[in-house]
């Protein structure tokens, strides 16, 4: 009976979301406070029934209710309980339900924390979120119902979960990513709310900034988790592939990054207002676009989720409605946004503007590269694909500018930079960065590539700038610690996030250029020298796992005749589904990873294998950097000004 309750609960949530979409906004239009005030209660109702529905789905997975179609297709009674639960969002229907549940979680969070908002703005924001919830709940109910039963013939057991997915990285990756995608809906709703109410003072930005930052932090972690998972679980050491699914999450991230920066300008200086509204719309639009690209099957193969174009069409309609509607609203109301104030060319504003332009250009270049194959198909040109080198060259080229500008921009003051001697400071930074970047890699590796030099010069340039920032902030304080405290969490959040960017960049530059990867044919007793490391293949053995049989290699790694690691790469054969999995042997450390993967046996004795050996310097820095960026983003929203109750008073004043 339970699944029917889930279905019922879903329908109730749908009804309440319809009310949430209509009533508060009607209240805004009709100027009826009582209607506007229904928003909070309705948000809670939607959240409650969605939570119940999702709990029932989890219950069905936990108790192996194979009469439910998604359970039968995605779970198995032999799975451990945590994989059973995570299987509930490892499929289209369940993950869409989770998507909507997260959306309504964000909605009630807004209702909770935004008590100081005017009733009108709160009503519009929650109403806009209600519209989105209604659209996607309709999608779930009418095209992807997770509670559909396969009656009367209930299968005895479900099909298994793919062994690649039985992994902690993939349990966490989708929900975190969705939190990020969905989180941008709040910034979007605030922007649309501002368009509806016609009030573009700095306060809507102050309210929406913490939400944007939180969403962005989730998205950052989500992307990093996906990359990390691909690295250690797929078995071949790749960490970014520029394929459509990755690009779908990277584009909103880029736009979201631009949004964070433009919102900073709007809040502090009351400038770029119209642009911030547009970016907020675009950040969420790109999130929706990501959902669409991934789920409609226009880019992935027919073997992906939506074998029927109906689902794709449905999402496309939702996209058209939300994006088109908000842009239409923008087109009509943008003229009302009055900008006052000015700034010089050498000022923080103008550098943040350049940052925005660069980030948006990168995002659209990625979009173009992602959609070009589709475009070619639509116009019946020859089938084509855009290779990773395209994305790499465009991205790297623009990142050079972004990092160069960052080194200057974060030192500048608002409006007009009039500090004496700043040109000299920059010159010192520049020279030291260039020289260190020239010397350091050369002394450490004995090799010199211009890419490494350029990349590291940029890294040291930004580092010098970060150091400079700390000196500036602490110079005039009683003590260093007092200076650090006085700088405020907003400053340190930014500092950490930029440090994170530098750490990730270091990882990318070094692993891309000094990464050594070679394929060998090896037998037991063979020894292979790869730069400073000697890989000794001790033996190959066959082992029996819980639900697989595996060939396992025992490889000892020596550096200067001293044993540094022993790794055990495996080739696993899962009998139930007939899957083959490459389990790499990785020895990780802060400065380098040693990575061994077994490809295939080359004779019948299974004692001769083709293997891939890799030395990956600084690869873990990629993900540590992302973690720092997310941390910085979260740190900066702990600022007291976001919790002050004065904001509604200031609104009254500006009216």
């Amino acid at each position, binding site marked *: 009976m339970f699944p029917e309750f889930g279905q019922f609960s879903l329908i109730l949530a749908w009804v309440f979301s319809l009310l949430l979409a209509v009533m508060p906004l009607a209240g805004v239009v009709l100027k009826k406070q009582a209607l506007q005030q229904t928003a909070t209660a309705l948000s809670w109702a939607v959240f409650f029934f969605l939570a119940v529905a999702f709990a029932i789905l989890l219950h069905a997975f936990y108790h192996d209710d194979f009469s439910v179609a998604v359970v039968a297709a995605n779970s198995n009674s032999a799975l451990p309980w945590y994989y059973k639960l995570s299987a509930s969002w*490892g499929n289209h229907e369940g*993950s869409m339900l989770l998507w909507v549940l997260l959306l309504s979680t964000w909605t009630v969070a807004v209702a909770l924390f935004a008590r100081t908002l005017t009733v009108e703005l709160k009503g519009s924001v929650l109403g806009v979120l209600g519209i989105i919830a209604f659209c996607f709940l309709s999608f779930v109910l009418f095209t992807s119902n997770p509670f559909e039963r396969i009656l009367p013939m209930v299968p005895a057991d479900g099909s298994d979960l793919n062994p690649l997915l039985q992994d902690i990285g993939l349990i966490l990756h989708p929900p975190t990513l969705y939190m990020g995608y969905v989180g941008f809906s709040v910034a979007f709703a605030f922007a649309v709310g501002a368009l509806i109410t016609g009030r573009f003072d700095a306060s809507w930005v102050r309210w929406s900034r913490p939400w944007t930052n939180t969403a962005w932090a989730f998205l950052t972690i989500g992307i990093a988790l996906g990359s990390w998972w691909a690295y250690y679980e797929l078995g071949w050491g790749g960490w970014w592939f520029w394929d459509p699914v990755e690009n779908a999450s990277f584009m909103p991230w880029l736009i979201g990054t631009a949004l964070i920066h433009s919102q900073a300008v709007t809040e502090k200086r009351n400038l770029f207002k119209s642009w911030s509204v547009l970016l907020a719309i675009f950040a969420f639009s790109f999130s929706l676009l990501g959902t669409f690209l991934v789920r409609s099957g226009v880019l992935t193969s027919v073997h992906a*989720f939506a074998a029927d174009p109906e689902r794709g069409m449905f999402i496309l309609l939702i996209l058209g409605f939300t994006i088109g509607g908000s842009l239409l609203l923008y087109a009509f109301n943008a003229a009302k946004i009055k900008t006052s104030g000015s700034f010089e060319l050498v000022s923080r504003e103008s550098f943040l503007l350049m940052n925005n332009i660069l980030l948006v*250009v990168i995002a659209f*270049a990625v979009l173009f590269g992602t959609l070009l194959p589709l475009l070619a198909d639509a116009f019946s040109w020859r089938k*084509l694909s855009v290779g990773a080198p395209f994305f790499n*060259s465009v991205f790297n*080229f623009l990142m050079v500018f972004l990092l160069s500008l960052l080194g200057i921009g974060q030192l500048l003051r608002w409006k007009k930079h009039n500090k004496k001697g700043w040109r000299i400071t920059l010159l010192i930074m520049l020279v030291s960065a260039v020289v260190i970047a020239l010397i350091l890699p050369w002394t450490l590796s004995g090799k010199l590539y211009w890419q490494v030099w350029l990349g590291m010069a940029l890294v040291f340039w930004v580092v010098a700038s970060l150091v400079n920032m700390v000196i500036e902030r602490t110079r005039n304080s009683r003590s260093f610690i007092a200076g650090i405290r006085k700088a405020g969490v907003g400053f340190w959040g930014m500092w950490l996030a930029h440090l994170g960017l530098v750490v990730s960049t270091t990882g990318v530059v070094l692993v891309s250029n000094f990464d050594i990867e070679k394929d060998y044919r090896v037998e037991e007793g063979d020894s292979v020298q790869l730069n400073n490391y000697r890989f000794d293949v001790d033996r190959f053995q066959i082992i029996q796992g819980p639900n697989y049989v595996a060939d396992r290699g025992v490889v000892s790694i020596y550096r200067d005749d001293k044993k540094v690691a022993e790794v055990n790469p495996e080739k696993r054969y899962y009998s139930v589904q007939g899957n083959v999995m490459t389990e790499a042997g990785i020895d990780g450390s802060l400065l380098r990873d040693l990575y061994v993967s077994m490809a295939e046996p080359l004779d019948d004795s299974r004692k001769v294998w083709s293997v891939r050996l890799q030395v990956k310097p600084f690869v873990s820095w990629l993900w540590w950097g992302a973690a720092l960026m997310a941390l910085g983003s979260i740190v900066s929203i702990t600022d007291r000004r976001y919790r002050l109750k004065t904001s509604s008073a200031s609104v009254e004043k500006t009216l």
Partner: protein
Amino acid sequence: MNPKRKQRLILILLGVCGLTVAVFLVIFALRQNLNYFFTPLEISNGAAPSEQVIRAGGMVLPGSIAREDGSLVVNFKVTDYAAIIDVKYDGILPDLFEEGQGVVVIGKLDDNGLLTADSVLAKHDETYMPPEVTHALEQAEKAAK
């Protein structure tokens, strides 16, 4: 010039610069990195260019996989049921590479019609999966390039 005018000018100049650089960059990068798709039939008809990276797709012809002793070089044939092409590859094949399986090879053609592949992608025998899953599997196959 009043500050507002000046500001607007800065905005427009920056925007135009950014856009121009971006467009040139994209065109430049695209020129070298577009891989066109050809079927074996087209290749055997001479429709595909040599000395340029192309993609070709089809089925691995059963019984055509031949390894060279003592190295990782492997030769195989790919067919679209209308024509057959020869492929040579030096490296690690994806886990799902098998006779009779769908495969996409990326590489350059020589004058004798031999395609020397830089990478080989296998298609998997599963259907109807969530995109994250399909994506993961595709990455797994792609990774061994």
